[in-house]
């Protein structure tokens, strides 16, 4: 039922025992409830200690966890009257990036996010969250729409990266990403981005050049995937873990580097264990971030965003 990650084996074993015992509750022994309770505490302790010291590579695994809430889940729980909008008005509709209008806490917003899909069918439909130029051009269109009608923009970032393919290149993948960044920077409405899973390079920053970038505790954001980095710089695909360390792709490191603005805590054992709770916390994070721009002049909002990116890189990690 639950998808355990490799490093979660001890947790899986314990929870397996709990399950077994629960099946025995038919018998009248009182001790079982006690035993279950004890084991449950043990599980929690183990989860806590495991998740408190996840390595960057383990975080990458959690960030890509199949049960982790995706953009569709966030939209379902946080946005009312969601009205999906489609197409780049030039070539196609690309479901790797979904978006539309809706209400967040009662107010109209434009929402854009990468969607990876949750099973084989939807994964194929959404191309595993890897957008083609038409996806980025749709995002540009929606951001401009938001600007036109003075609606805040909320984006959810969850992509392995932009799609590497012949057709994507032929239609100007590079230009589409570049132009998206440019549109993000031009907005006179507040823009808040949340990295909910995987922030994969150019495909991520294309919709995350925002006033505030929030990251879930166990999400990652990087210039290149650990696998890609390992095969290029180490010429050895087995060096994923080392590459993940070196890249400093965790929310914790990125906050220290001033690249993101805040970290959103995840439920014990990761967002995939309690999606609803994780989504609710993200909702609060977005609300707080947007509140900072309430009543500000559009020019000021744009200038603040620009200033934030210009300030980056003043200090490194010690």
């Amino acid at each position: 039922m639950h998808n355990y990650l490799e490093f979660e084996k001890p947790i899986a074993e314990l929870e397996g025992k709990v399950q077994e015992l629960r099946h025995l509750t038919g018998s009248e022994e009182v001790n079982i409830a006690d035993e279950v309770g004890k084991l449950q505490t043990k599980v929690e302790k183990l989860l806590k200690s495991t998740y408190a010291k996840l390595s960057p590579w383990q975080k990458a695994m959690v960030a890509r966890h199949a049960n982790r809430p995706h953009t569709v889940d966030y939209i379902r729980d946080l946005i009312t009257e969601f009205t999906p909008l489609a197409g780049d008005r030039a070539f196609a509709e690309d479901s790797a990036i979904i978006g539309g209008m809706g209400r967040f806490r009662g107010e109209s917003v434009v929402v854009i996010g990468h969607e990876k899909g949750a099973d084989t069918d939807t994964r194929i439909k959404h191309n595993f969250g890897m957008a083609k130029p038409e996806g980025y051009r749709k995002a540009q269109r929606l951001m401009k729409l938001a600007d036109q009608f003075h609606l805040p923009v909320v984006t959810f970032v969850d992509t392995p990266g932009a799609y590497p393919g012949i057709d994507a290149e032929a239609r100007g993948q590079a230009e589409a990403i570049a132009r998206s960044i440019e549109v993000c920077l031009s907005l006179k409405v507040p823009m808040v981005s949340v990295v909910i899973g995987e922030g994969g390079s150019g495909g991520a920053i294309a919709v995350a050049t925002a006033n505030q970038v929030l990251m879930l505790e166990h999400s990652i954001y990087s210039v290149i995937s650990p696998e890609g980095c390992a095969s290029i710089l180490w010429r050895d695909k087995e060096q994923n873990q080392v590459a993940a360390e070196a890249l400093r792709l965790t929310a914790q490191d990125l906050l220290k580097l001033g690249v993101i603005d805040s970290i959103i805590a995840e439920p014990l054992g990761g967002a995939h264990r309690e999606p609803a709770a994780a989504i609710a916390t993200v909702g609060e994070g977005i609300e707080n971030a947007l509140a900072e721009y309430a009543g500000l002049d559009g020019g000021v909002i744009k200038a603040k965003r620009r200033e934030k990116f210009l300030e980056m890189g003043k200090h490194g990690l010690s």
Partner: protein
Amino acid sequence: MNWLKSWVRPKLRELVGQKEIPDHLWHKCPSCEEMIFHRDLEKNLRVCQHCGHHMRLNAKKRCELLFDDGEYTSIELKSPIVDPLKFKDRRKYSDRLKESQNKTGDDDAILVAHGTMGANKVVVAAFNFEFMGGSMGMAVGEGLLAAARLAVMQRAPLIVVPSSGGARMQEGILSLMQMARSTIAVEEVREAGLPYIVLLTDPTTGGVSASFAMLGDIAVSEPGAMIGFAGARVIEQTIRQQLPEGFQRAEYLYEHGMIDMVVHRTDLRDTLIRIVGLLCNPGASGELVSLEPAPKKKTVSDVDEVGEDPTPATFVDPDAIVVDAIDPNDDKKD
């Protein structure tokens, strides 16, 4: 046939005697593999005389080629924080940096210079592929911002010449952030109403192509330049298909509507001078002729008399340009 190489050839050499050919006198064209004498290569602007292949130019050679009489002033760039992530792969990033600095004599992969082209002031930011593949990290981002600000200060167009594999992995997320920062540089030039021209050269890929390099008001490329987002190898691995001939080359991008023109290196300077002239000196040459007779000769001063015309001084009313063209520079001088 190995014995031919390993035994016969050395024996023959012993008999004939090794010819001393200093290897820097002759270059082999990486495309057609013909030998080119070094003087011919330089005379031909490092374009192969046999097949027309454009070899890479380093930033200094690029500037010599572009500026009037090859003369320019380079500006000193603020050096950013070195090795912000304390990155180490098989080697330390700080060591790789030092090695590149020693090899090239440059601080990083970008050269920012100003001077004139066809007597027009221009600012050029040229990438040096020899420096860690021209990769974009903090220093390159700072260089592009400095170039943009210099252009704004001098009221000059900005010409950027990328030659880069993309983001500098060793600076991790901070190199990714340069995609946003370099786009801010472009915006600053745009907002000042100045032309932003990109001269794409081999190669322009990854995070560099997916930011400032694809945002030019005008996009010019050298022939055969590799331009694209994803690397050919990555694409091949993903789709498990052979890539089409000429894929991601300048001509391919031209055919797909991604760039304005592909220009041979010998015509490059003249083309850029013409572009800069057209954008910066509208009507200055006195050759602008309106096809239909204008109802009344209007001049800029007529427009001014109308009253509170908010038209800025540097803007020339197109209606005002009749046969006797007005030099817009006249009102810039005060």
